[in-house]
């Protein structure tokens, strides 16, 4: 029974008191009003941020994004160090998290795990529930010291000696840095990337797997030939969503990234990110001068990037899901945010 039939039933009612028809109209309109309010909220957010960030963009133009110096006292606002730090930490997170996520999704969906399957799924999802400030606390007191004493000297000794690649791991590890922030971010985005990859892998038709196996393929060959090529669009979409999360993560990064304005190749030096600078400087940002406007322009930039990534990710995942479902009514499959129904 479809929605349309229900609509017809409730419209073509026989004698009903006028009051209840009025109630129907009122209720439908108010629910529409609230739902439209959600769209209005997004619009208002963009508008408010644009209104306030406008001054600094009009004044500094492109130099706001390319300038290397940020000093509220002298009213110089060049956001390049923050943009650099945000991109670098997010890139580290993606490089570390995506392979693990895809492998994890394959482990859960393609390997017979027996009783282990549900606990594994739940535990990975729980990683997403840990508050960002708890990640930050752990990172600051446990991970950063460990990185300082053990991991980073080791990396500098070994990988640091390789030409080109080594440039990433040179320097004197001390305190929070870009690498620590990237690693924390990788853990934080792991659950979302895994969840979406799993949902896409789950709807790859079994016929494709069976065809590969019938030809004598091993599990590895079956996954390489029948699963990954078809799920690729969804995995790219999952990666984009993970990237969006990583770009906007604030507190954990602010606690471990070291808050240094330098630019350079090494990942073992302190960096700074867009969300971190907003969180650290909003208190002093008055409406006099450009400080407040500059922070809001940064928020707007972040918002714009996150919007584009989320929209593209959703379209990609939705299209992949639709293709895999045979182009039919993929309404259910096309909703990647639906709670994962684990069998």
């Amino acid at each position, binding site marked *: 029974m479809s929605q349309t039939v229900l609509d017809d039933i409730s419209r073509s009612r026989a004698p009903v008191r006028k009051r209840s028809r009025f109630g129907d109209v009122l209720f439908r309109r108010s629910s529409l009003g609230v739902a439209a309010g959600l769209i209005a909220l997004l619009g208002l957010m963009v508008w408010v941020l644009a209104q306030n960030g406008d001054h600094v963009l009009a004044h500094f133009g492109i130099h706001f994004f390319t300038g290397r110096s940020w000093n509220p006292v002298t009213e110089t606002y060049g956001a390049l160090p923050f943009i650099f730090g945000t991109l670098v930490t997010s890139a580290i997170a993606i490089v570390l998290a995506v392979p693990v996520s895809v492998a994890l999704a394959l482990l859960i969906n393609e390997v017979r795990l027996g009783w282990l399957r549900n606990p594994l799924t739940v535990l990975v999802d729980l990683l997403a529930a840990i508050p960002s400030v708890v990640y930050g606390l*752990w990172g600051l007191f446990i991970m950063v010291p460990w990185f300082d004493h053990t991991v980073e000297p080791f990396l500098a000794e070994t990988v640091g000696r390789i030409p080109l690649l080594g440039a990433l791991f040179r320097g004197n590890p001390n305190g929070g840095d870009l690498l620590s922030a990237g690693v924390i971010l990788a853990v934080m985005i792991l659950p979302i990337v895994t969840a979406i990859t799993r949902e896409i892998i789950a709807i790859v038709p079994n016929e494709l797997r069976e065809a590969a196996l019938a030809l004598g393929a091993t599990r590895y060959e079956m996954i390489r030939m029948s699963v990954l090529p078809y799920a690729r669009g969804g995995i790219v979409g999952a990666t984009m969503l993970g990237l*969006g999360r990583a770009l906007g993560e604030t507190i954990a990064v602010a606690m471990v990234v070291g808050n240094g304005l330098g630019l350079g190749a090494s990942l073992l030096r302190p960096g700074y990110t867009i969300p971190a600078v907003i969180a650290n400087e909003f208190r002093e940002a008055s409406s006099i001068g450009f400080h407040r406007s500059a922070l809001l322009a940064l928020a707007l930039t972040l918002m714009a990037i*996150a919007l584009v990534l989320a929209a593209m990710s959703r379209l990609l995942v939705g299209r992949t899901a639709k293709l895999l479902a045979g182009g039919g009514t993929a309404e259910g499959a096309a909703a990647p945010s639906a709670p994962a129904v684990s069998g």
Partner: protein
Amino acid sequence: MIAVEPSLQRARVSPVRRWKNRAFTAALWAAGFLALLPLVFIAGYVLAKGVRALNLDFFTKEPAAPGQPGGGIVQSFIGTGIIVGLAVLFSVPLGIMTAVYLSEYGRGRVARSVRFVAEILLSTPSIVAGAFIWVLVVVTLGSFSALAGGIALTVLMWPIIARAAEEVLRLVPQELREGALALGVPRWRVILRIVVPTAGAGIFTAIMLAVARGLGETAPILLTALGNDFINVHPTQPTDALPLRIFNYAQSPIDQWHTIAWGGAVILLVGVLLLSITARVLSNRQLRRTR
């Protein structure tokens, strides 16, 4: 979903291919192991370091002066309660009404746009929501406040509740609606008296998930409620919150405050994990029942 499983025992597979397959499977297991390490380490350290900080003062006293022993963070618990309470007050009706629209009336372009926007808002960085409410509410009213904190969390929780509640409203059997309508009950009463109560447990789960998210958020609260060293119950004044207190104490140079930060982290982590696990168990049970 695992309908097929390669049975390699019988097939004649060359050693190279067999070896590759084994290495690949081992890599998958390694990824599984690697992914669980952080959870174990984080939960382990937080419990080990945090439980020691917990005592009666921790829950009942305001902070002691720096260097003085004792003191607690009661104002953070009260503040978190007020801020999250306000957020629930705003976001639950908004979220449920949006879900009702999407599942009961929504079709075509409008419904698709609402769903799309909800999806996008779900991936809005929380600091952006904070910055938005900071200019819109804090700067306009001239003061950081619990109210602004509640509104900032509402921006994050509304789409969560809307999407999750829509899913459970869709699970309500169509026959229930038809039966009630056939008896001449107006549609709005069918929705309010029959559809929503039937999905009640699921909607409660959706709210729990949203609260779990709201409880742990730091950045938007920082930009809107700011924090406070003393108990404040006035919604228009700066208010403390547990995540904020952890953030500030962790970055302070005082050892005793670090200990309190770990103590706060235990409470926060246990609270959030309990909420998420309960919500998950409940929703699995409901799914099984509707099948």
